[in-house]
């Protein structure tokens, strides 16, 4: 990602609605704060008489001393110091826990001397009869019929371990062709076999199996998955290119094609930008150094990146946002959200303005947006847009109530005032006069309106 986690959350997160109100939020939150204060006020009182044994002993990591997780970490850190810390200080176990030797007890006798517990030792090392027996005698099953009978038996007892054991034997003793053919009509066994091959990473055999079964989509996906192992970006790109012709569903084939195209571009953009950055000639890279490489980032992250660093470029370049938008058929709304976020982050309010401005044939401009203006205002305010910028979009919110609420939230006084005027609501306007600064321009505006004889107030 380009930004740190916190940064990102901060920037994306926005709340059109009042968030997390099970009922009356303010009330509950205050209550909670009060309780916190109450508890804190007791703190001093308590600490002065804190007796140590009360508090659980915790090590620097917060792990209770003497716990196994703690000890493992100690071992790990001691590897560097080459000396194992003494942990004799750990509280010793209560006596009753392991004072006796267990070997003598696991002979079917009562394990625990505690007579209140009616417990008998379950046979600790009961032979796992099934598979041991089968494992030993598997070699006896030589004819195909016997082998298949064995497999069907195993499936019948619903023990995956036994099923896999038989399959491993069949894999060794049958040719692939015969095995695959027989598995086709045995779905349960087949799924066990596929899982076994996946776990033991026998990629090639698994691909052959899919091919034999005509499961072309599974085959394609499995092959596509291989790209994750390739760390070199050029090799990965070439591999993805070869994936495009795999037998995906038409829909998925398009996605894989996009994946390839995207990585191809990212490689070009990355090379150019890294050079520009180290060259130190391009201002934006100096002002906002890149935090990570753009390679292997999702498409939208790439778009954001390009809106951030390459916004003004013409459509001809690979890194121009318009080009990316077109190549990957990015939905209008998706594009707007991303571009807005990037330009707002840079406080490029002109670009924000231009993003929403469209001109009709008479040359008049008007604001249009694929996402609601309240959301636009929200994203802008998250990026500390000044009131002048904010009020432009708040004023475009259609719903009167929402508009007033947002205007008040973002302190766009003129929007509130003009909305009240349009509503011809003298009372509300009078009320609002108390909320603006004394002697401010807003106050003058309100007074001017209130004394305007041409407005027919409804109250």
């Amino acid at each position, binding site marked *: 990602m380009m930004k740190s986690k916190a940064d990102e959350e901060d920037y994306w997160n926005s709340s059109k609605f009042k968030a997390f109100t099970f009922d009356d939020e303010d009330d509950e939150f205050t209550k909670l704060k009060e309780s916190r204060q109450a508890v804190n*006020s007791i703190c001093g009182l308590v600490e002065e008489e804190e007796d140590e044994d009360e508090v659980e002993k*915790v090590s620097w990591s917060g792990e209770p001393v003497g*716990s*196994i997780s703690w000890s493992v970490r100690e071992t790990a850190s001691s590897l560097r110091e080459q000396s194992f810390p003494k942990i004799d200080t750990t*509280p010793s*176990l209560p006596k009753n826990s*392991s004072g006796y030797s267990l070997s003598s007890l696991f002979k079917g006798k009562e394990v625990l001397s505690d007579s209140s517990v009616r417990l008998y030792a379950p046979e600790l090392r009961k032979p796992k009869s099934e598979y041991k027996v089968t494992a030993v005698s598997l070699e006896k099953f030589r004819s195909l019929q016997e082998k298949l009978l064995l497999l069907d038996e195993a499936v019948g007892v619903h023990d*995956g371990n036994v099923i896999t054991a038989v399959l491993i034997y069949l894999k060794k003793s049958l040719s692939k062709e015969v095995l695959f053919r027989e598995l086709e009509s045995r779905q349960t066994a087949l799924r066990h076999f596929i899982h076994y091959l996946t776990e033991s990473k026998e990629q090639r055999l698994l691909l052959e199996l899919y091919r034999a079964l005509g499961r072309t989509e599974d085959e394609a996906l499995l092959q596509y998955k291989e790209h994750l192992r390739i760390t070199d970006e050029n090799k990965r790109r070439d591999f993805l290119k070869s994936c495009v012709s795999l037998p995906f569903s038409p829909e998925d084939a398009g996605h894989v094609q996009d994946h390839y195209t995207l990585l191809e571009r990212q490689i070009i953009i990355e090379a150019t930008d890294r050079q520009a950055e180290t060259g130190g000639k391009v201002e934006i890279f100096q002002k906002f150094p890149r935090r990570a490489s753009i390679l292997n980032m999702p498409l939208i992250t790439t778009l954001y990146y390009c809106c951030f660093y390459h916004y003004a470029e013409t459509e001809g370049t690979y890194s121009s946002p318009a080009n990316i938008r077109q190549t990957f058929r990015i939905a209008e709304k998706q594009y707007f959200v991303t571009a807005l976020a990037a330009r707002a982050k840079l406080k490029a309010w002109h670009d924000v303005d231009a993003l929403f401005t469209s001109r009709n044939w008479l040359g008049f401009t008007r604001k249009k947006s694929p996402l609601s203006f309240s959301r636009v205002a929200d994203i802008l305010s998250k990026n500390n847009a000044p009131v002048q910028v904010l009020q432009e979009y708040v004023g475009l919110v259609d719903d009167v109530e929402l508009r007033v609420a947002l205007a008040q939230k973002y302190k766009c006084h003129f929007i509130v005032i003009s909305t009240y005027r349009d509503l011809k609501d003298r009372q509300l306007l009078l009320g609002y006069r108390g909320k603006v600064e004394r002697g401010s321009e807003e106050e003058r505006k309100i007074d001017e309106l209130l004394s305007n004889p041409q407005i027919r107030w409804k109250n």
Partner: protein
Amino acid sequence: MAHSARRDSPELPDFSVLKRLARDQLIYLLEQLPGKKDLFIEADLMSPLDRIANVSTLKQHEVDKLYKVEYKPVVSTSDQLCFLIRPRIQTVKWVCDVVNADKAAGKFKRYKIIFTPQKFYACETVLEEQGIFGDVSTDEWAFYLLPLDEDIINLELPEFFRDNFLEGDQRWVRTGGSALHLFHSIYGPFSKVYGIGRCSKMVYESWREQVKEGEQKARQAEVGTVFLIDRDVDFVTPLCSQVVYEGLVDDIFRIKCGCVEFGPDVTSSDKSIKVMLNSQDKVFNEIRNEHFSNVFGFLSQKARNLQTAYDKRRGMDIKQMKTFVSEELKGLKQEHRLLSLHIGASESMMKKKTKQDFQELLKTEHSLLEGFEIRECISFIEEHINRQVSYLKLCPLSLYFFTGLLPKDYRSLKAQYLQSYGVDHLLTFANLKQLGLLVEQQPGETLTVMESKMGKLVNDKTAGKLTDAFSSLAKKSNFRALSRRLSLVPKSDEEYDLRVPRDMAYIFSGAYIPLSCKLIEQVLERDGWTGLEEVTRLLNGHEFAVTADLRPQSDAQRIILVMFLGGCTFSEISALRFLGRERGYKFIVLTTAITNSARLIEAMLDNHV
């Protein structure tokens, strides 16, 4: 706030013996390798191990150093190495590398692998293939049941879910049967067993087999009734955001093996602290099952009480003060510590949830469950995908699937998802499809045909295996029908007072009764599946009810073991506790893992090597 328990609610059995049993077995196994040895522990076994033993237990049995399995070359100088691992091929391969590296360096050591809870043949095959079979001794530590609380027992096998439901691998079926068998041999005999789901049925059969193999001593039963349920019977419930305190803590901080790590934002200091969350924590015990909106009031009341209790000191004479210090102060301090932790946690959760448009998310989930305002829901999901909020936003998407996703929405949302989070999530989508969590629907007519074919297939035992492939299709439209039939979504025009819950829907703000828990309630009420034929048909069948020929014991009958195969959520546990209070039952939850929406989706991710 704490609901008064019905007076005749039976007492829960004592589960601490399970811990002692597991510990004793481990010690026995360690004694099988006498002398000093280094112990390598699989990362996800460390917390469970911590619950039953500690370092000094291990030291007493000549464990020298402890290491975490990290798939790197080892630096141990000990001549005896012991590996405590899950039966995974990857881990065994690593052990093979270690052994072979030693061999190549001319070092001769003794090796022992302890598999828990059991070993698999495939793992031994790896040893054989790598040429070290015989150089390494292997053993099994039958550590099945880890009591997390007085009414929760965990198998700590999160992979059960993916292996069984996604991969179709039945390797854990016998494990489930063995776990049930162990429980049965200590707390049984069971007189009634109900269940639903393919895996449940297989686990039940495996358990029966194991009962037959061993001898059973006649005993007074402590737990008489068992209910087994597959996670794929109800995917909707774990996909919903949790709003009951314990569930919310799990969603936000992730409770791991009954323990949560609260960061500096909660502790208001510079360090994190690990806290055990269970009924021993008196403050937590009173709020864990409460709807989050009730928790604030409770905590502030508690804080005020605490203040009053401390204030009592003023005006005390020496003698009174002495009594106060010796009798009350310790308790007060304890309470104070817990209270400030939970207040801190609540504050932090409030802040996080405010940030994430939580209210909007809940609204969307509720609308999807009710089937209203679907367009708004789509644009909410879309917007979150566009803003790259979190891949977990697949949860509402998947929820939407269960409640009726249109093909064109599916394609558009999938495309936007891949654009926002990376095309490699194609693999995730393939998994979701395989599991039946998210599938592109066939146009209406085809679906009906498929479904009617399906109905026939389900009844045909030999064709049972085919149902796998089609079950997802059947699941789609069924949620609505199930919801109607079982009245899962209460009428929205009625006010729901969360302070005085009237049914299990309170765990989802009164918007939805969890399907899993509703099934349990219905079956217990009807003493079987009679009258629920339509419901089980919609759920793809595989239901069963078995009654043993035993003298019924009223108390044991009312203690019910619910075994979730594939995991259960804290919200479901809260709902069952509520049901228990209402009906005079006590529920014990035995689960393969604690799950939630994030874990469910994460189990489907494949976009890593």
